[in-house]
């Protein structure tokens, strides 16, 4: 089973990289980009076949390592 994890900055946490990307898009002529928030995408290959157990495992991984929950949120998608 495959898990896809998105790690994003929480609302209210400044994202200077996102701001720089938004600025660069504007200077390339892409108008109307009001805001950019950047983050991380991780793809995990899991031996687990039970979706419920897999979700629990990946959640624990996010809490312990993949995200810093002081500033980051995460979402888990199972395939």
């Amino acid at each position, binding site marked *: 089973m495959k898990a896809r994890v998105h790690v994003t900055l929480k609302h209210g946490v*400044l994202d*200077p990289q996102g701001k*720089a990307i938004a600025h660069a898009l504007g200077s390339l002529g892409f108008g109307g980009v009001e805001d950019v928030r950047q983050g991380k995408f991780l793809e995990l290959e899991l031996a687990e076949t039970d979706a419920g157990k897999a979700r629990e495992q990946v959640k624990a991984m996010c809490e312990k390592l993949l995200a*810093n929950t002081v*500033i980051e949120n995460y979402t888990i998608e199972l395939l």
Partner: protein
Amino acid sequence: MKAAVVVFPGSNRERDVALALKRASYTNPAYVWHGDTELPAGTDLVVLPGGFSYGDYLRCGAMASLSPVMRAVKDHAARGGYVIGICNGFQILAETGLVPGVLMRNASLRFVCRDVHLKVETTNSAYTGGYQPGQVIRVPVAHAEGNYFADGETLNRLEGEDRVAFRYCTEAGEITPEASPNGAIRNIAGVLNEKRNVLGMMPHPENMTEAVVGGTDGAILFDSLAKALA
């Protein structure tokens, strides 16, 4: 003072801090490899030095915080043992949860390597006891992720408990946004844990301990430690 400097793959200031410790305490610290599971017997002070442990993979300090030696460092801190994390060491302490908060990418998105001024915000610690209250010191920073952040409740608690050790300031000691090299919230450059035995700080006091390299303001921190842990 018996000190141990932890060396991670990618640490690069371990010798600088070892020299500063030797200068203050007349004793060479032990080097401890990140894969070790024990600290040398009788260790008073653990130092997590600056550098780029594990290539800053995932997040600065995230990998190092899970290395085998960190379990021993956590136990040491829980027993009341002293731990200082400088620069990457501060990032590791934050990832480990030994000090609150997190170090994010500098607001400028640039690596900043220059001298900064710090205001000594508390002298109530083994690290800062040798400074004058409110003293302004000059030490260098060298980092791209030193933008300290914590939620408002945590910040108020840190301030209420006198746990902000240093803030970035102007030469005259004013706390202004422009005086911060990285955008750190409330200009915070260093924080203590609840028991005041763990200090994390972004600037490098170990690189300002000899007049010949530009100043000795950093030496006072190591002298304070040597006196407190004699």
